[in-house]
């Protein structure tokens, strides 16, 4: 296992974790572009652009892009988050250069008008699909309340109205603000020929024009509110809570993840024993999420509407107690054991390993081996967790509950 890095003259960074024993080669572009970089007028454009990347370039039609990806037998897809757009493909090692060439090409899409209008319909169907699906927008609405005027308040998909109003010109303008080589990382994991990777990147991307990009990272003060939204089509009640946590740059994120595992992992945690094993809720969990300059702890509870009031009260009491009484050595040991095993198991497939590699680099410009990551979790102490629970109290949160209930009171 060897880590390699190279920077093109225009600022595009190429990184790889090379494992000659792997059966596959996983390649991705990580682009610093997400909903936090949007505004009211272009809301949803990052995600729409992700779709448009597959709709053709000056060298390939949309059908040709799809055909070539399949000809290579690749496993290829893309996703958009609040602050990244990621395009990835896993192929057999001898197809590396061809896959890199194709991924590089689609990073400079044509954005043709007719393709744009057809794909707009697909995006609107995607919005409707999520509208019909649990938790019925609870997550997006809670993010909006929690972050208020902060850019992380923005919805990734946008709305039917904002997507309908988007034009190829507006998308091109956004593209020209975000897809600068300096704001992108070409990452690879698995059986990678690094020299060939750099050669192909130089050939395909060397002429890309560099331009300055910037991102707003205002502070995120703690926010506290309790709201619900009646949604009579739902059978269950879906409650989301957000509280602040360590940001991507903060080394305390390891403690925060272990804390979330102890409190709310989907098996064996405090929430599990209280709510899930007892049948009081269908699902109850807590997880840690990091962004540039901001962090979150997200608690999610899904239960019958008539049990929600009591469950929310119970959850609040558990959060207060957690900040006051800390954790046991036993809880810590189990959380570290399962997190460490998870990290190791996940990294066996290059297609999975790629995401830790690329995210680490684009968020922090750091490479961490699997072993170093495991060691960072193993170094977390009881004191670290207790300090974390005091610094980011779970009971201070933004709550939004969506479901059939027409009345719901916050914990006193």
């Amino acid at each position, binding site marked *: 296992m060897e880590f390699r890095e190279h920077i093109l003259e225009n600022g595009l960074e190429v990184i790889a974790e090379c494992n000659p024993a*792997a*059966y*596959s080669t996983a390649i991705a572009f990580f682009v610093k572009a997400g909903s936090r970089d949007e505004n009211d007028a272009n809301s949803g454009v990052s995600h729409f652009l992700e779709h448009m990347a597959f709709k053709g370039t000056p060298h390939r039609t*949309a*059908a040709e*892009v*799809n055909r070539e*990806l*399949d*000809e*290579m*037998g690749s*496993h290829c897809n893309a996703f958009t988050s609040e602050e990244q757009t990621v395009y990835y493909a*896993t*192929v*057999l090692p*001898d197809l590396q250069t*061809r896959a890199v060439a194709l991924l590089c090409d689609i990073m400079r899409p044509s954005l043709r008008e007719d393709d744009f209008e*057809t794909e*707009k*319909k*697909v995006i609107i*169907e*995607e919005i*409707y*699909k999520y*509208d*019909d*699906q*649990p938790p*019925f927008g609870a997550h997006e609405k809670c993010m909006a309340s929690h972050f208020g005027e902060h850019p992380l308040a923005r919805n990734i998909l946008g709305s039917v109205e904002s997507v309908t109003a988007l034009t190829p010109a507006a998308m091109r303008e956004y593209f020209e603000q975000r897809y600068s080589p300096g704001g992108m990382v070409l990452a690879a994991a698995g059986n990678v020929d690094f020299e060939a990777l750099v050669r192909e990147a130089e050939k395909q991307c060397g002429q890309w024009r560099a331009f300055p990009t910037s991102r707003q990272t205002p502070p995120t003060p703690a926010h506290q509110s309790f709201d619900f939204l009646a949604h009579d*089509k*739902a*059978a*269950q009640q879906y409650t989301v809570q957000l509280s602040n946590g360590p940001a991507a740059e903060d080394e305390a994120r390891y403690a925060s993840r272990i804390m979330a595992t102890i409190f709310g992992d989907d*098996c*064996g945690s405090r929430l*599990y*024993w209280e709510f*899930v*094993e*007892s*049948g*009081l*809720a*269908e*699902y109850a969990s807590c997880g840690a999420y990091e962004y540039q300059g901001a962090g979150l702890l997200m608690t999610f509870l899904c*239960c*019958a509407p008539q049990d929600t009031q009591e469950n929310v009260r119970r959850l609040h009491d558990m959060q207060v107690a957690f900040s006051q009484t800390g954790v046991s050595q036993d809880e810590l*040991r*189990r959380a570290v054991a*399962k997190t460490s*095993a*998870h990290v*190791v*198991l996940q990294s*066996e*497939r*290059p*297609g999975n390993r790629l995401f830790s590699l690329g995210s680490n680099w684009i968020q922090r410009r750091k490479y961490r081996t699997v072993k170093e990551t495991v060691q960072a979790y193993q170094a977390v102490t009881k004191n670290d967790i207790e300090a974390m629970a005091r610094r980011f109290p779970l009971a201070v949160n933004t709550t939004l509950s969506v479901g059939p209930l027409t009345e719901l009171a916050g914990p006193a």
Partner: protein
Amino acid sequence: MSRGLSALREFYVSPPILSHEYENGLVLVAEPMPWLESAAFTLLLPAGCIYDAPNRVGLANLTCEMVQRGCGQRDSRRFVEDLENLGADTSSSVSNTHTSFGGAMLADTLPEVLGIFADLVLRPHLPGEQLEEGKMVCVQEIRAIEDELAQRLMSGLRRRHYPAPYGRSAPGALAAIEQATMQDVQASFQNNYVPRGAILGVAGKIEWESLREHVGKIFADWKDRPQTAPPETPAGGGYEHLQQASQQTQIGMAFDSVPYADPDYFQARGAIGVLSDGMSSRLFTEVRENRGLCYTVYASMGSAHRRHGAVLCYAGTSTERAQETLDVMTAELIRLGQGVEQGELDRLKARLKSSLIMIQESSQARSGGVAAEWHHLNRVRTLAELGEHVDRLSCQSINAYLAEHPPADFTVVTLGEQPLEPPDGVS
């Protein structure tokens, strides 16, 4: 492709697949993957929901919940905590035919983890005082599905298309769970957690001889007990609309195909691959790419049981475009009957072969794969053998199959604001 497909065979290490049937009927089937650090297991028990009495559908799911509430020397908390301390990522589920338990872990902890699951199968406490909690967990699951429209649609489609009881959904009905007693759970456990028909699939960094010995030892007390096969009644077929206030209409279509063990399975799979595998497949191209009718569309091969194969198709689209979507899907199914083309087949072969090679990176996927193959075939083919089946596919062989078995006699289920006009040729 930059290499001939047959040359890809060198990528398969293809270790022999090892199997052993113990006296009580339990089969251990294993694929050593010495290049990994992990090991994984999949334990299939012949305890699927098809064995539930018609007024107790959901009982297998409740039994699966109850056996995890303490076994051997462990109460339910200790059971979960010991697995966590061992770093085992475990899961359980109930399908039509099986209750399955599985897990992935660092290889050196596999023997201990298997020991815990042997306790679960042989010595569960089935604590009566936790029956109400167990039922509540199952009730929550049924309620949650109410909100999962695509899942509800596909359950409806399977129920209508497969002969009963093979189209059942494991979570079952609320009334069945509410009425279930501890005696029901005990009977379900006694009748169906049996070694004959049980398959333990293991893959990863393992040593065969010691694994075989260890499994023999920990499951030695498991007594062979007879199991009764459920009676079968014909499928309903036809068209059904499920009324639901929603933005999108969910569309499901099914038609008969061959089961996994059939000699023609790969021909049928090849045809469905051209229809639905990958971004250049016909459904993705015609329904999504060219017309923008939906975000999700697919067709997949299903085997509800060794005997019944079917193709299940899905699309979700806004109400006013649902009829057009159903019409385009139907047209594509009919067109498939006219045959596939060389370019389509070449792309599909590349995808299938690449998947077969990459699956060697996952002990979890392989442990499930070898167990399922044994269930269907009573043997397991190596990845190289599967690769040869893919190599042998030709347009001629697939088209000959399609001429004999063109997609027809559709079962159609929709879920949404309005019923649709079903296509001609609904069964």
